[in-house]
């Protein structure tokens, strides 16, 4: 764990997770907690990527399948599957990911804007270049944005 702290270097922390074979990340400030797959109640007439709702200590929160949200093939949950609970503005929202691997501290300038926001990559905020590996940094506000617009894109 060689963490370099340069003088005056802005840092950010990201939660790193895997999704459909890619390594992705999201800003830790959006994350409330990370839980195992809860029991999900299906929500009729909800968008395809909404898995349903779940009881999180007495609060009922919607659960999104990030694979379906990003038009990847859905898979059945296994013991690695995690739900990242993020602040959705109006309330918390759970996001299903394949596995959560680590929390990384990265220098601000490691985030490159490559391809961010481009056609088909509306949910990408940037690419984190960590030398030997690349992390796709997702813009969670876009991921959980009101669905009407994105339905049109889907």
């Amino acid at each position, binding site marked *: 764990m060689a963490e370099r702290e340069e003088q005056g270097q802005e840092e950010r922390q990201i939660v790193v997770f895997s999704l459909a074979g890619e390594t992705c990340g999201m800003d830790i400030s959006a994350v409330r907690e990370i839980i195992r797959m809860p*029991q999900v*109640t*299906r*929500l*009729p*007439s*909800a968008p395809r990527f*909404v898995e349903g*709702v*779940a*009881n999180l200590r*007495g*609060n*009922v*929160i*919607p659960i999104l399948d990030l694979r379906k949200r990003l038009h990847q093939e859905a898979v059945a949950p296994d013991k690695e599957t995690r739900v990242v609970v993020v602040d*959705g*503005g*109006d*309330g*918390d*929202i759970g996001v299903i990911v394949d596995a959560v691997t680590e929390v990384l501290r990265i220098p601000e300038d490691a985030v490159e804007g490559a391809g961010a926001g481009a056609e088909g990559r509306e949910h990408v905020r940037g690419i984190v270049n960590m030398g030997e590996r690349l992390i796709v940094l997702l813009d969670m506000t876009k991921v*959980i944005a*009101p669905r009407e617009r994105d339905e049109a894109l889907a």
Partner: protein
Amino acid sequence: MAEPRAQAGDTADRELAVFAEEAAELLQSLEDGLLRLERAPDDRGELSELFRAAHTLKGTSAMVGLAGMSEVTHVMEDFFSAVRDGQATISSAVTDTLLESVDMLKEMRRRFSVGEPVAEPPTAHLSLLRGLTGGAPPARRDAPELAALASALEASAAAQEVLRRARSAGHKAYSVCVEFEEPPDRAGVRCYQILNALEESAVAIESVPSKADLDHGAPVQRFAALVAAGVGKGELRAAVSAVTGVRSVAIRAWRRPPPGEEPPRTEFAVSPEAQARRTMRVDLERLDGLMNTVGELVVDRTRMGELARVLQRKYERDAVVQELCGTSAHLFRLVDELNDAMSQVRMVPISTLFATFPRMVRDLARNTAKVVEFRLEGEETELDRGVINEIKDAVIHLLRNAVDHGIEGPAERQAAGKPEAGTVLVAARHEQGRIVVSVEDDGSGIDAALVSARAVDRGLVTQQAAERMSDGDIWDLLFEPGFSTSERVTETSGRGVGMDVVRRSVSAVGGLVELQSVHGSGTTVTLRLPLTLATFQGLLVRVGEALFAIPVSYVQETAKLDRQGVSTVLGAEVLRLRGGTVPLVRMSELYGDGGASSNTPGGAVVVVRAGERPLALGVDELLAQRDVVAKPLQAMESCEGIAGTSVLGDGTVALILDTPALIAKVSRERGRAAR
């Protein structure tokens, strides 16, 4: 778990919170009073209420260091005096200025309550406000500070004692009022420097802002202190003037009541809060937390009762189990009582919702150059605060619609042979154990033919179905999500903006919304709401793997579902019921995966009714009737057919059926064929 709050350290915070809350009430009564006075300028009682509100606010705001608020309310108070003495009069223009002041004060209060810096009132507005009083002499600049010092002194026995001792030792009391250069640079520090300078030759008894407020870093434009000194004014002045940043110093011998602060005349006597307090204020967040906890208790006690019964069957003769069952039954009753008491605590008069309406209607009408006679009825009707919160936006929305789109302009009204002023009535009343809130206008109404034509255009109904529709069916179309965004209908018919949102929020609390309109002569929207939101009785049903809760207020009856009872009319299933027929919908087709469960033997039907239309819902299994605590569907603004969710005793989530929306949908899809 919520973090335990520090109990001891936040006394000052709590006092500030009490001020902020009281100020909000006073400002609201100022606004209401101004609106009433505008219509009845000769109402002496109203005038004296206004004076009292301004006077109280002047004192309390000065005490918490809000010199700007104190100054504005002082000028308002002067104006009300002038009106009383016949030196000034009330007009719409004057009311505009005063309402603007109230808005400004509201913003100050808001900023103060959330800890943002509070800006001084703009000089231009102050002089405009002062101008209202006409020739009356401008108030002494330091009058608010002097008043605040007097209040602070009155509030502190210790300070009075210091003053008494100093006086008996031959010292004299002075007030020292300081105005800083603008902008005040580190004024808080300057205040301390001034106090230090004064204390070299005097004893500081009170100050405004107080030391505690200075420590909180409240921005300061002006500073005042009450001191007792053996030396003269000159020496004090010299000491204070030596501090940098001081623009002017005013030192006066202290007298009570202080100069410039005339005691209010008897007509305006400020009533002392002499009576012992029988009520107390509670933070709404705490109340909501308590209510949530009670809600969970209700759910758990139901679950516990069930478990106790299971145990009892299993170990009938076990004494411990018997005792457990007894205790459980007792707990059951206690929780019931607690729940009822909680509902009572949460009952508030609907005037808390209506309070902002007169101002809103006035401004809307002025902006759209309409003349609107606005009336409120049944403001004292009580209902659950939670219900009020849920429907607040809906009612505001309906009111806006009524003024914006319902009421026509004066010329148009005259041409139609109506009185120039349109009437909008918002009323609340009890009716058969429910609260009915209606928004009524005598405006242009809605053209039913246009609405149905539009619905056909948008593919919501077929031409054929549209022709068979009753007016009631047509009004239902206005509540459809697809319909609401249509601007053309808004302009021509004057309705339909966000009515789907209105229905959703009303359904979410288990209520109903109805619309009636006569083209050319007005529209009435009626909300039927439950008295309380805390818990409601829900019928739990299973559809496939999903659990649904149907509020029993919509349930007419339940029955077994057998083949013989079902017929097909025009390709749609109906249930034969005592000689009549009711449209039948299999919930598995609507909400399930469309799997095989729809023909499961042993299924049941639930006949629901909203308004006049019954509907039979085919479900797989009837489970139980339960107390249900509704949880909003967070962060999901729309999910058709679902009004909310509820967590059951074992932690599973049941979906609360949006019954009225479902009935409307089926009724629309089938036209009138099934009747």
